[in-house]
């Protein structure tokens, strides 16, 4: 079936329909309308798949997509316009421009943790750039998958945008085919598979992966700052899908003396946001499935890790809920500190001096996001220049995701390629260089047979030395570094 679909999509692409600004805008508007019409369906689907609270759903899914679609709607025409390039005078008369063109038929592989926004946000980019699209949804968020598969064809141009549901076998089949771009959000392990398959067809790939995103917490002196920082960390760890987010805080780095202050503040924030004990937890997403629940449970099974729990640690297997859990200095060689946690466990690692956090972070693969709470400007600068990550956010978490003007994407282990706003458009476009020349003014020295005069001319031309060129044409002999003997 997929084979037939890709034929149809290629045909649609060749017809040129998806290139027009009208088509692109109509599809973006259709996405907005779909979200407007089906808000409650989406709330329900996410309640089923992940027990996400509707406000969380609005904040992290519906709202994000609407914002992206609106931003693209108001900018896409500008993005599509050719960019005039500067042309050196020597090429006169000529005209250069860079013309963005759609890549063709693209494949978007969406994850389960933000099954609406991480599916539709790249789709918005692909539509804005004028591509035809196959969107493969995650089978691990079945309600959202079913919702999008049944609803998208009712709103979007189904000859240009196809939605496919299914598991690994379907993904494997899709990857066998030739695409003009593959956009993948998920784990580094699957990212490697996607890239190896893409290599067979020389397909460019964007990989949005994750990693252990650290939060550095400097020893803040103002109690109200500490409160804000703790709130933001608590919001950025357990808020978005209960830590099952690629830009969630993975662990916190603090100085020894500051750890207890942080833990107390976090406890307060947790009880206010999510409730006090396992029985009356609220506003907290569940773990996506038994497999991931077991993975997280196993992390906590290690006796030394279990001994480092200072808050939480209870599990509700029936409802797949794990209490917000704080660990103080678990062993650095335990799984909790070597692998991405992707769940509601928050290790706090203490250091003698907060400056050591730079070295600590650099000893691990490059994360997708780095968070630092500090008022020390020198330290900020040091973090910026001495560490590497997809993004750096000072004194807050997660909000960088909402800025359409900032590129969103990883580096090293956290992926490559970037999207959001104009970057989404660029990710799905080819920048075609176009140079127009005329027949007027022919430079004779471009042509063989070669001689000294021509060599001198070209030397000056490359330096854009117009006076020299003029003198040369007038017959003046110029300094020669090249003797004629080199010219056979």
């Amino acid at each position, binding site marked *: 079936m997929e084979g037939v679909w890709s034929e149809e999509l290629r045909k649609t692409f060749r017809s040129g329909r998806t290139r027009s600004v009208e088509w692109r805008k109509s599809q973006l508007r259709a996405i907005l309308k779909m979200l407007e019409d089906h808000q409650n369906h989406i709330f329900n689907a996410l309640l089923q798949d992940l027990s996400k*609270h509707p*406000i*969380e759903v*609005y904040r992290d899914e519906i*709202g994000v997509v*609407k*914002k992206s679609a609106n931003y693209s709607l108001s900018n896409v025409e500008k993005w599509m316009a050719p960019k005039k390039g500067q*042309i050196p005078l020597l090429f006169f008369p000529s005209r*250069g421009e*860079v*013309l963005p063109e759609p890549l063709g038929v693209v494949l978007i592989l969406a994850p389960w943790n933000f099954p609406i926004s991480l599916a539709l946000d790249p789709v918005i980019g692909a539509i804005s750039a004028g591509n035809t699209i196959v969107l493969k949804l995650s089978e691990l968020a079945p309600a959202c998958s079913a919702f999008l598969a049944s609803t998208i064809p009712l709103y979007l141009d189904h000859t240009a945008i196809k939605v496919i549901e299914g598991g690994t076998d379907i993904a494997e089949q899709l990857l066998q085919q030739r695409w003009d771009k593959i956009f993948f959000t998920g784990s580094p392990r699957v990212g*490697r598979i996607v890239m190896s398959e*893409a*290599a*067979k067809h*020389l397909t*460019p790939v964007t990989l949005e992966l994750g990693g252990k995103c650290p939060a550095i917490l400097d020893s803040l002196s*103002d109690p109200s700052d500490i409160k804000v920082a703790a*709130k933001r960390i608590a*919001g950025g760890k357990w*808020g978005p899908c209960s830590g099952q987010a690629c830009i969630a805080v993975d662990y916190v780095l603090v100085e020894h003396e500051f750890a207890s202050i942080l833990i107390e503040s976090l406890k307060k924030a947790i009880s206010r*946001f*999510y409730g006090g004990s396992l029985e009356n937890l609220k*506003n907290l997403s569940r773990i996506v499935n038994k497999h991931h629940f077991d993975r997280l449970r196993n992390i906590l099974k290690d006796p030394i890790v279990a001994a480092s729990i200072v808050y939480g640690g209870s599990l509700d297997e029936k409802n797949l809920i794990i209490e917000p859990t704080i660990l103080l200095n678990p062993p650095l060689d335990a799984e909790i500190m070597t692998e991405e946690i992707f769940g509601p466990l928050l290790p706090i690692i203490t250091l003698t001096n907060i400056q050591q956090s730079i070295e600590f972070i650099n000893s691990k693969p490059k994360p997708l996001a780095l968070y630092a709470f500090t008022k020390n400007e020198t330290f900020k600068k040091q973090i910026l220049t001495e560490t*590497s*990550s*997809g*993004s*750096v*956010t000072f*004194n*807050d978490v997660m*909000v*960088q995701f*909402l*800025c359409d*003007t*900032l*590129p969103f994407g990883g*580096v*090293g282990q956290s*992926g*490559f*390629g970037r999207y959001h706003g104009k970057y989404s458009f660029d990710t799905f476009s080819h*920048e*075609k*260089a*176009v*140079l127009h*020349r005329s*027949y007027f003014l*022919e430079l004779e020295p*471009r*042509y*063989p047979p*070669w001689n000294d005069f021509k060599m001198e001319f*070209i*030397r000056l031309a490359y330096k854009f030395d117009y006076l020299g060129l003029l003198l040369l044409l007038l017959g003046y002999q110029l300094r020669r570094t090249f003797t004629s003997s080199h*010219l*056979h």
Partner: protein
Amino acid sequence: MASEFEKKKKEEEVFGAEAATSLVKELRATFTSQKTKSYEWRVSQLKSLLKLTNDHEKEITDALRSDLSKPVFESYVYEIALVKSSCEFMLKELKHWMMPDKVKTSIAAFPSSAEIVREPLGVVLVISAWNYPFLLSLDPVIGAIAAGNAVVLKPSEISPATSSLLAKLLGEYMDNSAVKVVEGAVPETSALLEQKWDKIFYTGNGKVGRIVLAAAAKHLTPVALELGGKCPLFVDSNINLKVTARRIITGKWGLNNGQACVAADHIITTKDFATKLIDALKLELEKFYGSDPLISEDLSRIVSPNHFARLTKLLDDDKVSGNIVHGGQRDEINLKIAPTILLDAPEDSLIMNEEIFGPLLPIVTVGSLEDSFNDMNSKEKPLAAYLFTNNKKLKEEFVKNVSAGGLLINDIALHLTNPYLPFGGVGESGMDSYHGRFSFDTFTHKKAVLYRGFSGDVSARYPPYTPRKLRLLKALLSLNFVGIIRALLGSSN
């Protein structure tokens, strides 16, 4: 002493996994030391490259003559001068490219400021090609250095003189703790590809490109592939025939005798015009290269016996035996092939189905150029496509309908000398681009940086969630100011 020398030589000979690992380790240590990130270091290295090129023009042209019998003039125009102008352009622009870009932030994150900081990727590998062995080695290296990376260059073993010259000169002129040359063939390249790089920049063919990409996948390394393809040249009939013929010759035989990724692969023109064009080409060819082009000093030779055999196979294909209308002479001993023109070679002949990469130029006749633009869509996307015409409408159709890495109207290959245009392929002709600012970008990570204070927290971000918070969030995300105010006024939180 002698035995030590022998030992060292032996170590150099077997550049295997171990040597590659320690090489990368050394460069990573240099990169971690922050040295390569400074503006001063980058400038000093670019200046050294410029000096290296200025000081050794003669050796460079000699090496290219030895590898390819490349005319000195061509070596200067397409290799030496381009490397120099590339260095000079970087030196001029680098400072402001390195500056962070301030960007606006959204109201959802208010109050805050944001910027995009450029940081080098780390330790990068440049694998170069044999046809422009000096330019295609150093041009990416210039980008890698300008962006502040440590870099390993692997020049092509098929142009051995240039390869060893590059190893020698870069050893003498560059900071060897950060810039290294590894010479060698397949085993050395394989050893290098097993390492973890922060970027691989490969120039060559699609077959090896796939191998590079698959190797990079294991380490999640981003890759730039500069490949080739069958670059078509469309010729309309309403043009200045003489100028066109001369530009075509320069853009085919004047580019390393057709051994260039941007050289015109074949011509597409209308039936009635083909003979006129062929006559003009013949006339100008003789003016350029004399009556016996096999002895012309202004034409490169074929790089190796392998490639010579590949090209003669294209010519000796039974399917094209009646199609050669000009040239066809060859000199196997000196690896020379004369400029050769074929008319209407059958579609299923070898020459029409693989990248020619040599001095053979098939001319395909069609009823209308416009229709042939559309036929392009069923073929692989080439690195470049060319059109000679004075017809404005045809130009527009061409730009709109033909997809290629770059398009050039009324000339050939000139676009690659323009530092303001990205140079790179799409589809089968590669991915990612370079030249000028694009070279800097291809070796740079754009790090998003957001600065926030501790004030201005919108409680709606945090649980416990209430309907009021939902209203506020909706207003914030849709920039509905009245809604924001109403939600805030209504909120006692």
